[in-house]
């Protein structure tokens, strides 16, 4: 190049040159400038949950805080969950399984009714109504009480009771006299309690 003697670069020389090249020191006023710059910054006050957790992590009561935090969460969550579970079970028990009523196709009201609406100056559009409601079976199922599915008598007892009713109706067995008498007395009492007006209505109905 220019004829001057140059030395080859070994690893150590290269490292030394790089270290020297980057080895500058900040000016004495650098720290003061940075502090002034930071003082102009708004304080970082947006502490997140992670900061709180890391703050707890630095304290010596970390396990205690952890247990307390878990306890608080459980005390809030578990009773609520149990309450919801109980409500869900009660609803399942009390709500009868009513089959879905098949919906009839929506039909527009007849032209007459529309014309009436038009004549009366009613601006609002009439909403379409279902053309038919439900079949007889559906009506029966709709009329079912919500208590229908409750089991009041055990299956074995119900069978025995049905058998008893059957034989009493067929008069294949004879009830003992005191029972009959008490039964008749009960019927007489009922008759006596029925007012005359009601009895007259019954006669009309009959």
């Amino acid at each position, binding site marked *: *190049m220019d004829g*001057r*003697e*140059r*030395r*080859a*670069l070994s*690893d150590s020389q*290269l*490292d*030394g*040159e*790089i*270290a*020297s*090249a*980057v*080895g*500058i*020191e*900040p*000016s004495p006023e*650098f*720290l003061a*400038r*940075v*502090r002034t*710059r*930071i003082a102009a*910054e*708004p*304080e*970082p*006050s*947006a*502490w*997140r949950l*992670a*900061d709180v957790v*890391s*703050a707890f992590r*630095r*304290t*010596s009561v970390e396990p205690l805080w952890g247990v307390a935090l878990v306890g608080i969460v459980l005390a809030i969550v578990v009773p609520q969950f149990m309450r919801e579970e109980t409500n869900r079970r009660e609803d399942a028990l009390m709500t009868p399984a009513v089959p879905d009523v098949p919906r009839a196709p929506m039909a527009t009201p007849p032209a007459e009714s529309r014309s009436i609406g038009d004549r009366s100056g009613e601006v609002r559009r009439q909403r379409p109504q279902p053309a038919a409601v439900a079949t007889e079976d559906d009506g029966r199922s709709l009329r079912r009480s919500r208590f229908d599915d409750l089991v009041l008598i055990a299956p074995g007892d119900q069978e025995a009771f049905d058998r008893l009713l059957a034989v009493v109706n067929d008069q294949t067995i004879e009830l003992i006299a005191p029972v009959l008498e008490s039964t008749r007395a009960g019927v007489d009492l009922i008759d006596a309690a029925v007012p005359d007006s009601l009895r007259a209505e019954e006669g009309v109905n009959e």
Partner: protein
Amino acid sequence: MHDRAEVAPQLHAWDRGLTVDQALAREFEARLVESSTLAVRVAYSVLRNREDAEDVAQEAFAKAYRSFSQLRDRERFRAWLVRMTWRMALDRQRANRRRLAREGHPDSWLPASAGRVPGSIEENLQGDLEARERTQHLWRAIDALSEKLRIVIVLAGIQEYDVKEVAALLDLPEGTVKSRLFAARQQLKDELSWMVESDAR
């Protein structure tokens, strides 16, 4: 340069009844004192200008301060700061180049002070002019490296070739740092070999 052990007592400011903001401010002050030289050197390795480097380092500290409370692992502050300063210095370098290109000096982005290296390197070389020339060639060779090799060789120079420290700053395995350091050295020697060849002639 300050030793990192000096910072350790500051980290437990929570235990001394300080408010959150006070503890934060004290901890950041300790980090600032500890890492200021590192940040300026990282910025300088990109910009080759002390004033620009200090400006970028200052902005990096301001940015770090704004996000300091969100830094989960405060022990990673130096690594976080190095990466932030490096990116900001690259942004400044690109802006400088664009500005110089607009002004009609596309090749003069390297400031005149770039060759004036402090320390005893100049004493070891034959003269100030030659030292400046060598350093300028060195920087040009470093700039020709890929970014991942460049940051490794620069940080190694800053950290006195402590591979473990460089690996921690870059969040890389030590083996990766060693291999990149080797590759960077090889490329630099190849880039600078023309000087040796011309000497032989």
